[in-house]
């Protein structure tokens, strides 16, 4: 059977999470706001207005460029991209064409087989967003709220080889954008938009065949599905002896299918030229080093370090570095704890993550400070409380914000390690359950767990389960 490989490149638009728009003082984020409520003469393109560049946009672009190993340019320029559309109030988009803020770059994408895919970046520049149009009752309505919202357009080389790699790239990109506090990077809300260029070729071939472009996909999962379907379609076409045409394909979320968009007969000429209303963006050394002064360790590097430095399994390291504040939290707990990092990791991976997910929090927002969590783990280690109590304590600290030790004292949660008391409870249970005793003695040793559970219940969870087991074994076997 013929083997094909897919050649995929992604064109992404990243909405930056700046306070204000790129060229005016309007609020950038209009999520949930009424149409045309965040607009001014500048972003709605009234006659006579001029753009003034928001420096925060440049700063975020520089952070991303650095993270993508791109070459940040000391001088970059804005250009006008001219075209007519109702949601483009000036009739041109201010973008960067000839001299963008950064050149080149790549992302090292870890693959499930342990290898790495080097995904090249061919374009990284700043630009303004356009507004939105919608059709309603035979009318075309325009909302300018999104006009002038800052974007970074970032385009990859055709270096991705499967739908899974597309998804993996976007997950890594999303992680990075949030890590650097550049963007909320939510595809569902359009903070991160991705179009995929897909073509196939026989394995071993080196040339590029005709590609199609997939547009309007609103989640990473949907894009994975869309790309998968398109690869399958292209293979079917080629197998049937048909040529692939350079279509633009529109994704329909409801039917989970792609359909051909109306194609334009001619390539648009945007008549790019340098935006005369803006000066050169001059990134002098002082500004650049101020931007990069607090440049953080990036997720993949941190993941690697967690494995190396703390001896964590890859799996743990990956999850703990999925989000910057979680990985910071891990390190702080670990430092306060001073014991086995894997033990801290277990607490985070099981209990803390569940708490974060349930409450929709980030680790930095927890009332359980790293110090408190270290304290809880130490209490369990010292057998002052047992593990289930420790887990319950975690929830209580999060609810109240009180130090764990205070709660343990106030609520008398300390573990019962009194052999006499445990022996008394165990003896009562053995006496009250002759059937079970008989079965145990007849070889059903699995019942031990049940006996221990009964002791724990009777002691309201405070008994040291190891001690209870010891006593029970003595009583049952003796």
């Amino acid at each position: 059977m013929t083997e094909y490989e897919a050649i995929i490149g992604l064109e992404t638009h990243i909405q930056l999470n700046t306070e204000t728009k790129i060229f005016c003082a309007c609020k950038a984020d209009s999520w949930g706001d009424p149409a045309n409520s965040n607009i001014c003469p500048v972003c709605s393109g009234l006659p006579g207005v001029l753009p003034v560049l928001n420096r925060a946009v440049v700063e975020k672009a520089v952070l991303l460029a650095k993270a993508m190993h791109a070459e940040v340019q000391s001088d970059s320029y804005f250009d006008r991209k001219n075209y007519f559309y109702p949601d483009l109030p000036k009739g041109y988009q201010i973008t960067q064409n000839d001299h963008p803020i950064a050149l080149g770059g790549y992302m090292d994408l870890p693959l499930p087989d342990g290898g790495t895919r080097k995904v090249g970046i061919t374009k990284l520049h700043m630009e303004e967003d356009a507004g939105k149009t919608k059709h309603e009752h035979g009318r075309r309505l325009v909302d300018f709220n999104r006009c002038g919202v800052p974007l970074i357009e970032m385009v990859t080389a055709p270096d991705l080889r499967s739908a899974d790699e597309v998804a993996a790239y976007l997950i890594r990109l999303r992680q990075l954008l949030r890590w650097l506090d550049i963007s909320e990077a939510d595809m569902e809300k359009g903070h991160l938009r991705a179009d995929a260029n897909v073509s196939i070729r026989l394995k071993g071939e080196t040339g590029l065949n005709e590609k199609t472009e997939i547009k309007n996909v609103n989640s990473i999962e949907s894009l994975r599905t869309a790309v998968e379907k398109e690869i399958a379609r292209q293979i079917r076409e080629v197998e049937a002896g048909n040529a692939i045409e350079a279509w633009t394909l529109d994704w329909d979320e409801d039917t989970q299918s792609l359909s051909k968009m109306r194609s334009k007969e001619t390539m648009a000429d945007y008549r790019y030229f340098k935006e005369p209303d803006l000066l050169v963006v001059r990134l002098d050394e002082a500004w650049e080093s101020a931007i990069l002064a607090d440049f953080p360790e990036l997720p993949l590097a941190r993941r690697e370090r967690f494995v190396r430095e703390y001896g964590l399994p890859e799996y743990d390291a990956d999850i703990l570095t999925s989000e910057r504040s979680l990985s910071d939290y891990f390190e702080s707990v670990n430092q306060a704890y001073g014991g086995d990092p894997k033990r801290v990791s277990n607490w985070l991976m099981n209990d803390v993550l569940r708490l974060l997910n349930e409450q929709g929090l980030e680790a930095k927002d927890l009332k359980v400070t790293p110090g408190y969590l270290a304290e809880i783990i130490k209490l369990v280690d010292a057998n002052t409380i047992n593990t289930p109590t420790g887990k319950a304590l975690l929830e209580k600290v999060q609810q109240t914000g009180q130090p764990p030790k205070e709660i343990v004292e106030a609520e008398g949660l300390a573990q019962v390690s009194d052999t006499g008391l445990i022996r008394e409870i165990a003896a009562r249970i053995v006496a009250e359950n002759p059937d079970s005793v008989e079965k145990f003695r007849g070889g059903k040793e699995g019942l031990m767990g049940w006996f221990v559970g009964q002791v724990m219940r009777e002691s309201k969870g405070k008994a040291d389960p190891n001690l209870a087991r010891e006593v029970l074994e003595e009583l049952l076997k003796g």
Partner: protein
Amino acid sequence: MSAMELCDLSAYELAALIRKREISAVEALESTLERIELVDGRPGSLDAGEITAEDHAKVHAFITRTEETARAQAQAVDKSISEGVIPGPLAGVPYTVKDIFNVRGTRSTAGSRILSNYTAPYTATAVERMEKAGAVMLGKVNLDEFTHGSSSESSAYQPAPRNPWDTSKVPGGSSGGSTAAVAAGMGALSLGTDTGGSIRQPAAFCGVVGLKPTYGRVSRYGLIAFGSSLDCPGPVARNVRDAAMMLSVIAGPDRRDSTAVTIPVPDYTAEIEAGVKGMRIGLSPDFFKIQYFNHESGQMEEEPISDEIKQAVEQAADRLSEMGARVVENVPMPRTKYGIPTYFVISRVEVASNLHRFDGVKYGYRTPVPAEDLDELYRRTRAEGFGAQPKLRILMGMYVSAAQYSEQYYQRALRVRSLIRGDFERIYDPQGEYRLDALLTPATPTPAFGYGDVYGDTVLMQYADQFTVTGNHAGVPGLSLMGGLSKERLPLGIQLLGRDYDEATLLRIGRAFEVATEDAAWRKVRPQVLEGLS
């Protein structure tokens, strides 16, 4: 000679009298409104009907008059002064605004049908600064549509302005309404714009002072853009001191315009009387001929400029020399001849893009014909809303910036532009051969031409800007002022071109020339429309 009215006083004189409470701002305003009544005729409108003989004798500077807000402003100034507070250096001085600036609550038409119903929701920075300085706005004055012309005839609002010195002549353009108004006593000052000569050329035609400041010296915020890299708002005044006062008010950085420079603004009147002793003022042979490309022969050809203008410039050089300036002759400015062709490309590319926004979707004119689809809405709106000049310029701009032609035209024009800039850098270089403080040139090749004589020939019209346009390419300041009167009793304009941000030197030279020619016979002659006024 008719009696001087308050409206004929300079801004400097008016402001002083008002400040000293010798006259009131309201009196100054009423005198000016009376003058407008007498000489301006009907304001420009879209449905002017037949242009009558009476129209031919009037100036028609205005599109929109704002008497009511002007009265309120003047009363506020008087009230403030009676309370001992001087609102600003131009308190009570009546002025006009070229209708290319946005003024909140005022119709802002750009001389175009496409903005006929447009009321600006905000005020341009330069106008805002005039308001803050206490100046009283009389209204919005006429211009070539979107400033596209050198005669003001292309306005969609007719009758178009006429030259107060001879109403059969054009006032020049595109700030023709501004210069005609100032020449005829309809406001001591006017706010104009200069993209290729649009302040200096009409100032020369109307015998007033026009200053194109250095690019970036005055904020462009609120100025409806023509050539964004060339546009300069600037003063039109009756004398040099007034222009200096107005520049001091409107110049300076603006957080809404990133191309407005942050260099501090001097008081331009401070050194104005300091004279020209020791200054080096150049004369260039390249400014004493018209050079143009002959499409039939394929050659650059030359024609002499008007003898009278040539003499006016030479006489000005003599006067300045007598006052102690060193006149440096034969200063080469070899790229002057490329000014117009280069301008034809760069300004058109920028304007084609700048005019994209007028699409009938958001504001302004929209075709009344129900459109089948969006493209038809655009096409009809723009076909009906724009006049011939914007259309020609859009077409040319689209062409020379198209992907396949951009290198050949637009990119090349940009390179020529920097060569033109090089001409200026060479003559002002303090270590160079010429070390000039300013270049003295004719402002225009001819005095005002006849109404309708050139209109329709876009290329010929553009050559009226031959001597002014290189200043826009280079970004340097230029001052246009009256240097004499022709036998036909038309003003002859001379121009001083200066160093970046050195308007002060130009104003100082201009003022010295005024002093030197104070008693010249031509200084006593008044514009035709003012003759015989009681």
